[in-house]
């Protein structure tokens, strides 16, 4: 009994000693209080005068003390919700290092929302500056990848509404885009995986600053087309529609049809797109695209002296035609730049692994001449909440 007691005391003491030595002497390793870090929400990369260097812009979220008394002071004045820091350096991390000397808090990169390349830098090439975003432990793969229509710095310094922080508002805009189609989700991971496919070309959304009535706001319209790692051109928003229809994975997409007798707006849903690469016996290659879907009529204007039974087939035909046209528009732009933004090469590789060996080397010659056969069948299944339009009623 006594022996048991001694050994148990012995054990308790040694456990306490072990714990206190390991916990107390090592200190709080890696601990960083939340008010000692500056949370970076956006990183912009621009060219600098020196061709070997870049100009890095970091947008840092500002925190305001939430105490009641303190808040009242700052409520009246203009309170920026972020501050922007700049540094010019050879690499990205060294730029952060040099920023650190001007900042009392250490940069915290895990919450970075966007990586924006300035247009000039994008045209010079992005590959050499992407490495750090993949390698460094604080960087995340899910960050949005964007190209600015001018300088990245301008995007990160703009004040937006209602989201005060432009980087956060930008990421919200991009997240909304994915509600239309998953293929519009272009984050660092998607961009890089496109970049490493030998025949494919990457795309990235283009962001620009636009003036509103009394505010400025950011707009994501257009897509930058890359050849290898250099930006070579861009898609207009209509061509982007063509891109979405080709790539599939559409959730819901609005269709706007303007015809001579009137105008109609429809929402397409339940869309199934299947893309099939075909190699004919004579060696001619083509892609067949089959699109099936349903639409609901949301708005019509005009179409005087016509009833609904006449309007629906008219709009349906026009919609199918429009989708076809969009696809062709987008394809011709991609073929002009000789950038396989659709990943057709990869599709051929998957479906015809044997033939691909010979195709691979001449893909640059094959792609501009590639034909797409579309088979589009979108049906209006629902005329909306009302039958005939108000002005139609009058005519009768």
């Amino acid at each position: 009994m006594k022996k048991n007691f001694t050994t148990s005391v012995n054990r308790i003491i040694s456990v306490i000693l072990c714990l206190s030595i390991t916990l107390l002497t090592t200190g709080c390793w890696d601990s960083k209080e939340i008010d000692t870090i500056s949370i970076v929400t956006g990183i912009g990369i621009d060219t600098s005068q020196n061709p070997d260097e870049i100009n890095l812009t970091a947008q840092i979220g500002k925190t305001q003390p939430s105490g009641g008394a303190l808040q009242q002071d700052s409520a009246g004045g203009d309170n920026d919700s972020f501050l922007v820091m700049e540094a010019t350096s050879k690499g990205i991390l060294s730029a952060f290092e040099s920023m650190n000397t001007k900042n009392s808090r250490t940069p915290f990169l895990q919450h970075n929302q966007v990586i924006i390349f300035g247009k000039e830098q994008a045209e010079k090439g992005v590959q050499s500056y992407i490495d750090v975003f993949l390698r460094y432990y604080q960087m995340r793969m899910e960050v949005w990848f964007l190209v600015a229509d001018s300088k990245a710095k301008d995007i990160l310094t703009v004040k937006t509404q209602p989201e005060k922080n432009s980087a956060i508002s930008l990421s919200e805009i991009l997240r909304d885009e994915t509600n239309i189609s998953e293929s519009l989700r272009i984050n660092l991971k998607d961009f890089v995986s496109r970049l490493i496919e030998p025949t494919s070309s990457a795309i990235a959304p283009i962001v620009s600053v636009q003036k509103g009535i009394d505010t400025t706001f950011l707009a994501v319209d257009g897509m930058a087309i890359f050849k290898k790692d250099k930006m070579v051109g861009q898609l207009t928003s209509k061509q982007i529609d063509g891109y979405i229809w080709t790539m599939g994975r559409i959730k819901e997409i609005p269709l706007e049809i303007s015809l001579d007798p009137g105008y109609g707006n429809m929402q397409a849903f339940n869309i199934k797109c299947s893309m099939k690469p075909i190699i004919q016996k004579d060696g001619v290659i083509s892609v067949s695209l089959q699109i099936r879907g349903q639409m609901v009529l949301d708005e019509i204007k005009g179409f005087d002296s016509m009833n609904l039974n006449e309007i629906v087939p008219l709009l349906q035909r026009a919609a199918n035609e429009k989708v076809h046209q969009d696809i062709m528009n987008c394809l011709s732009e991609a073929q002009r730049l000789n950038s396989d933004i659709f990943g057709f090469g990869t599709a051929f590789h998957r479906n015809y692994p044997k033939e691909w060996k010979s195709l691979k080397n001449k893909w640059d010659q094959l792609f501009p001449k590639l034909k797409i056969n579309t088979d589009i069948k979108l049906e209006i299944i629902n005329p909306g909440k009302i039958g005939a339009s108000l002005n139609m009623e009058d005519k009768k």
Partner: protein
Amino acid sequence: MFIKFLVKKITFLFKQNQTPPIETQSAEKKTKGLSDKLKDNIDSLKLIFGDSGDLKIHEILFGKNLELSGALIFIDGLVDSKTITESIIKPLILNKNIGDGMEIENMSMDIIKKTILCSGDMSEIKDQTQMIEGCLAGETVFLLDGFKEALLISTKGWEKRNVTEPQTELVVRGPREGFTEDFRTNTALLRRRIKSPDFKMEQMKIGRKSLTDVCIAYIDKVAQPRIIEMVKKRLEKLEVDSILDSGYIEEYIEDAPFSVFPTVGYSEKPDVIAGKLLEGRVAIIVDGSPFVLTAPYLFIESFQTSEDYCIRPLYASVTRMLRLMAYFISIFTVPIYIALTTFHQELIPTTLLFTFANASEGTPFPSFIEALIMVFSFEILREAGLRLPRPVGQAISIVGALIMGDAAVAAGLVGAPMVIAVAFTAVAGFVIPVQIDSVSILRFILMVFSAALGGFGIAIGLLGILVHLASLKSFGVDYFGTVIPSQDLQDSFVRMPLWSMSGRPKDIAYIDKKRRKTFIPSTRRSNDHQET
């Protein structure tokens, strides 16, 4: 070397506190027969009791010619004087036939007991110790001159609290009776619920000075003899001077005295105890305490309430899972908050991170110190509110809520999310009152771990807790038993319908394992239909 030195010091300190066993027990046990002279007996009693004011010795003369002299000895306050008058004094004095037709020599205690006295509970004794013990337990001793025997007549009657609804374990639906401080009332409350003769109550007295009645209650063939033996042995081993509450017994007999987890259960409600007895557990009823102990006690029992079995199973299961969740929330919220805000900011969603950052902006302390301040002041508030009379307690809670919650945040001393986390933790802790001590201690330990090592520390702490829980045993039954998958799962995370729980807990019950016939209600319903 250093460790050995420390061990020596500490064991030495412990040894000093251990007093040598006292040998008085055997001296008290020495039996001493009664004298046949009334005067001698009374004198020796007076000698033993000294001049205790509450010892009453009432001498009476009775018989046809008042030739018999006797004495009634009792402790004032422990007896019902009306019973003494009605059932002892009146029959003796008013019955003038005593001694008529029989010689005094032929008189015996037996005859008095059987023919004269009007009481349901009498026993003949011959030795002084028994007499004293009986006296002190509220019985009346009847001594008769010329006899070596005495009669112990039950006249217990003292002030006691009524059976009321207990302050703890309140229920919306279900029986509202609670145990009282009175031993006999408590056993009666149990007996009224289990009328089977299999329900056994073994009585003993513990405590050299207090001589407290303690009763081991169990149901024969339902409770394992092994466990009953273990409880009995542990109780018999006790050599203490007093037992003032069942908490004393709990501390002496529990398996892991240094653990934060209780290994002996308690309840204030007879329906709860009856339920546990029917599961095969052993109950320990202690005189003077409204809390009855049960053993073995498993971890999952802390999450079972009596109301679970009174309401329908679906909602009972939901509330039980809610309780389990509240338990984990109560332990882990603050440590996780500390770990997230000092180590793993990348795990917080961006907008939430900015909320946290705004809150901690301008607060002077690291979040661990913040948490310590809040948790400690909460514990102080709780303690203050608990012991004070109710009107003052309310004032305390208002001051506490205002000053602690609002002013501390407004002054920029503590971040608002921390106040929320601690408040949430505190409220969640009250969901499982039985485990409240383990919750507050574990919370504190995990806070230290998470402040030193972050999420890794919490993982280590959790692992330690699980290992400890798995190693605990309560009276030979695995403490963490029903939590791991087994047949008893039907009454752990969920409470299955009563008709589907056919067996008693597997680890605990003995031979009589079957509780009820299982039936499927739908078939029964169709049978009813056919009958009509």
